[in-house]
Structures are given as C-alpha cells and as structure tokens.
C-alpha cells in the first residue's frame, strides 16, 4: 500500500513473480508434453521434448471433430448469451419501472431460484425437455440455458437499472414514444457496463459447462468441446500424447478470448461483484 518503491517492495515483487511462475507450471507441462511422443512423455514428463512432434494435433483434431465441436460450442454460447441479454434486460427494466406487489413477487422468485442447485432440477428436466422436444437440438439447449441463466442475469440488470435516472424516459413517453422504442433506443445503451459483465459471466459459464450439454446432446455431431473432450478421454484413456494435444486445442479458444479481452473481463467481473 506504499507508493514508494522500497527494498521491501522489491522483495515482495520477487516473491510475487515466483508465485506467478508457480501458477503457470501446469500450462508448461501441458504445452511441452503435447509435442512429445508417448515414449518421451512416459520417460520424463518434466524435460523439454527430445524431438518436436506435431502429428498428434492432426489426429486429435479429427478424433474430436474439432471444427464441429467448436462451432457447436460457439453457437450455443453466442445465442444463449445474446438471448439472455435481451430477455433479462427487458424484464428487469419493466420490473424496476412498475413498482408494486406483482413486480416484487416476481423479482423475489427469480432471485430465490439462484440457490437451487442444477442437480435438483436435472432429473425432472431430462424428462420434461424430452417431451418438449428440446433434446438433441442446439436451439433446445439454448432455450434451457435461458431458463437457468435468467435468474442471475436479471438480478444484475435489476441492481443496475435502479441507479439509472428515469426522467428522460418519462419525457420521451410524454412525447409519444412507445415502450419498446424507449427501452431499446434510450435505456439499453445506458446499460452497457452491466451488459459487458453479464456477457462475460454467461460466456464463461456456458462455454465451459459440461453436464447440461452432455445430458441434452447425445448425438456425436452435436457435441460441444467439453463433451467431445470427455468422450476422447474415455476412449483413449492414458494415451497422454493424444490427450494433451487435445487439451491444448480445447483450451486454446477460451485462452485467446481471455488474452484479447482481459481488461474488459477483469473489469467486468469486478463490476458484477461490487453490488
């Protein structure tokens, strides 16, 4: 908390960098071993590769059917996140701007559901979604993500909208603008900071989610990245040369996403928590 750079700060800096390197060690292990042959891995997993082999990447690319899995993950994540932004921001705005018993009860219901664990609704949901035709379909899975994500997303928008002044909206409404116009043209742009937070939190959750897509998408060509990865490890258990190349390919998209947008991501998460 001192602003001067003292010997003490230097010592702290060295400790901090050492800790940072320690945090990165797992990535080192995955990266160096992903370009080794299996014999080289089994002999010594810590050393640099004797010869760099890339052919595992090609094979695992096909085994995972990576372009397909990537596209499925992308479609599910993008449409679920975008839809959650639309339905939750609209509902939150209306609930804040319509004070009354009904709004209170509805908001309470949305918030209370945040403590329900996924496992508690999972069993009946499998049956219900089969009868609603939501199984083995990407739009179906997107619809299910709407239902699970709406609680937290609406909660965050609700908290933010309470601090947005409503005078402008009122004068626009006197001038004859309809509520949709007011919301999308005047209110929604003001919600940008919390929209960034919401998009980040939902993207991370949905992109990395495993159990729900595994339950809902049984067909091989509908697999998302985590589901395809789990299938790969089930089939090629202990074939680390394949497994590690797969893990590099599988984590690459989200790591690149993070490195490109890290400023927004870190800021967005901090903003979402300070309520």
């Amino acid at each position, binding site marked *: 908390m001192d602003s001067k750079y003292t010997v003490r700060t230097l010592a702290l800096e060295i400790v901090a960098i050492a800790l940072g390197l320690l945090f990165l060690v797992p990535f080192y292990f995955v990266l160096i071993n992903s370009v080794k042959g299996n014999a080289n891995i089994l002999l010594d997993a810590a*050393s640099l590769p004797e010869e760099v082999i890339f052919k595992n990447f090609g094979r695992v690319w096909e085994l995972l059917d990576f372009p397909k899995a990537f596209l499925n993950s992308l479609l599910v994540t993008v449409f679920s996140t975008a839809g959650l932004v639309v339905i939750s921001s609209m509902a939150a705005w209306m609930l804040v701007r319509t004070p009354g018993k009904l709004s209170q009860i509805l908001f309470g219901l949305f918030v209370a559901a945040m403590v329900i664990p996924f496992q508690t609704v999972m*069993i009946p949901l499998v049956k*219900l979604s089969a009868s609603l035709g939501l199984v083995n379909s990407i739009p179906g899975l997107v619809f299910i993500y709407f239902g699970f994500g709406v609680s937290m997303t609406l909660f965050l928008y609700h908290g933010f909208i309470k601090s947005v002044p409503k005078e402008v909206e009122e004068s626009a409404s006197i001038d004859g603008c309809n509520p949709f116009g007011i919301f999308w043209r005047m209110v929604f742009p003001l919600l940008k900071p919390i929209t960034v937070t919401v998009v980040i939190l939902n993207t991370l959750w949905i992109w990395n989610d495993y159990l729900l897509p595994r339950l809902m998408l049984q067909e091989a060509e509908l697999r998302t990245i985590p589901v395809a990865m789990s299938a790969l490890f089930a089939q090629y258990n202990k074939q680390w040369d394949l497994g590690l190349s797969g893990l590099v390919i599988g984590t690459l998209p989200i790591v690149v996403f993070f490195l490109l947008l890290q400023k927004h991501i870190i800021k967005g998460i901090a903003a979402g928590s300070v309520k």
Partner: protein
Amino acid sequence: MNAVAETKQNETARRTKLSKGLIFAAFVGPALLTFLCIQIIPFIMGIYYSFTSWNGVSSAVEWVGLDNFARIFTEDDKFVRSFLFTLKFTIVAVALSNLIGFGLALMLNGALKSKNVLRTVFFMPNMIGGLLLGFIWQFIFIKGFAAVGEWSQLSFFQLPWLGDANTAFWGIVIVFAWQQSGYLMIIYIAALQGVDQSVLEASRIDGASRWMSLRKIVIPLIAPAFTICLFLSLSHAFKIYDLNYSLTGGGPFNSTESVAMNIYAEAFTNNNYGIGSAKSLVFFAIVALVTMGQVMLTKRREVEA
C-alpha cells in the same frame, strides 16, 4: 357530466390499463416463461418424484411416502459418505481459496511493477472449465509430479497423489484453489481499491502496525467483499462435479465422490429417479441453508463495521 362521456372515460381508462398489462407481459413474459419451464416446473416435479419409486422409464409412478428419505439416511452409506466428503471439501477449499485470493489481492494492490501481468496470470486458470482442468491436473499429478519427484527426490512429489484417498482429497483442493483464487482475488482487489488511503496513513502515524491496520481497518471496511467471495466459493465448492469427475472419477474407492456425482449416478446409472430426486431435494435444502446462513452471518458483520 353526462352518461355517454362517463362511459367513454371509463373505456379509455380500461384500455390504458389493458395496454399497460400487455406491455408488462411483453417485457417480462419471455424471461418468466423460460424460467418457469426450466427451473420452477422441474423443481416442483422433483418434489413429487421424491415421494415415488419412479425409475425414469415406466409410466407407473408409485407413491412411497417418505421411504426414499428414510432409505437415504439409514441404508445409503455411499450417500452419507459423499455428503461428508463434500462438507469437508467445502470447508477446506473455501478457506484455502479465500486465503490465497485475499493474500494475492493484498500483494498486487501495492506498488509492484509486475502487478498487471501477474493479475492476468493468477486469473488465467479461471477461464478454463473444471472438466478440462481436471484432465490437465490428472496428467500433472500422475506424470508431472512423478518426474519432478525423481529429479528432486522430494517425498511430496513421490506420494501416490490420485491413488490414495487422503492425497486425492488434497489434490482436488489444490486444483480448486488454483482455479478459484484468481477470481476471488479480482473481487478483493476491487474492494481494496475502494479503501480510503488517508485513513490508513493516519493509523500508521498513530503507530499502528501493518497487521493491526489490516485487521482493524482494512478487513472491516471490505467486509462486503468477504460476503460475496465466501458465497461464490461456497456454492461452487458445494456443487462440485466436473472437476472430480475428470480428475479422480470419484475414486479411489468412491472416497472423492461428491453429492452431485452421487445424485447423477443414482438417477442416470442406477435408474432410481425417485431416490435421486429425494437426494437432490435434501441437497437443495442443505445448499440453501448453508449459503443463506453464511450471507446472513457475514452481512451482520458488515452492519457492525
């Protein structure tokens, strides 16, 4: 005022009321519909199923009263064990990841030149989902640690990490802390940046040690961050599934099977949907009680501060 004008006025009043109701429905409806279909209706169905012997396939759903609940607590050793594992794991993992997260935040809140890079580094593991992290660490514990152990001859790395119940427990704790502490760090840093520096300087002039001003001034001031971080890590730890599914598969000998895994196996492997639903309801009650209790407890501290 004549009667015609009055009815006309009533008519317009009713119309605006109706159109207000329609607009309300148009804005709130989509969110409410998905929410009811995906969370509330299955939740209510689950309560009903927990009193039945439904196997998930047959259309005959037989009412068995409280039998499922009695069975869970009296005959199902595996469930009780998975519950004890989850409880122990949650306590240790929440404490450790918050301690590390808060420590990192204190460290990076200072004048370090590398603080922006390090913040990125510490946060990075959080981007990767539990399933993939579990596979990554499975390799590290089995092959990586063995290689380091051979090279360094340190017994810490030569332990049978995932092959032994005790070390497998700590293995999951380590990975959880590695993944979560960077996230918690971000929240703690945001809170620390809101602390008024002049208060700290004043206390320093008055002769307070670093430790004293941390304990008596900083921690009370950022109590809301503790509420949030404890809530987030508590609910993540309690519901752990992906990480131990891919890291240990619940083994060795079911010693690291979490409640979430036990419920999944009961429903989808054993096809006991009724018992699985009863378990999931018990799970819900405990998660709700613990997280709400924690929020109330830490919130009270905020008020006192």
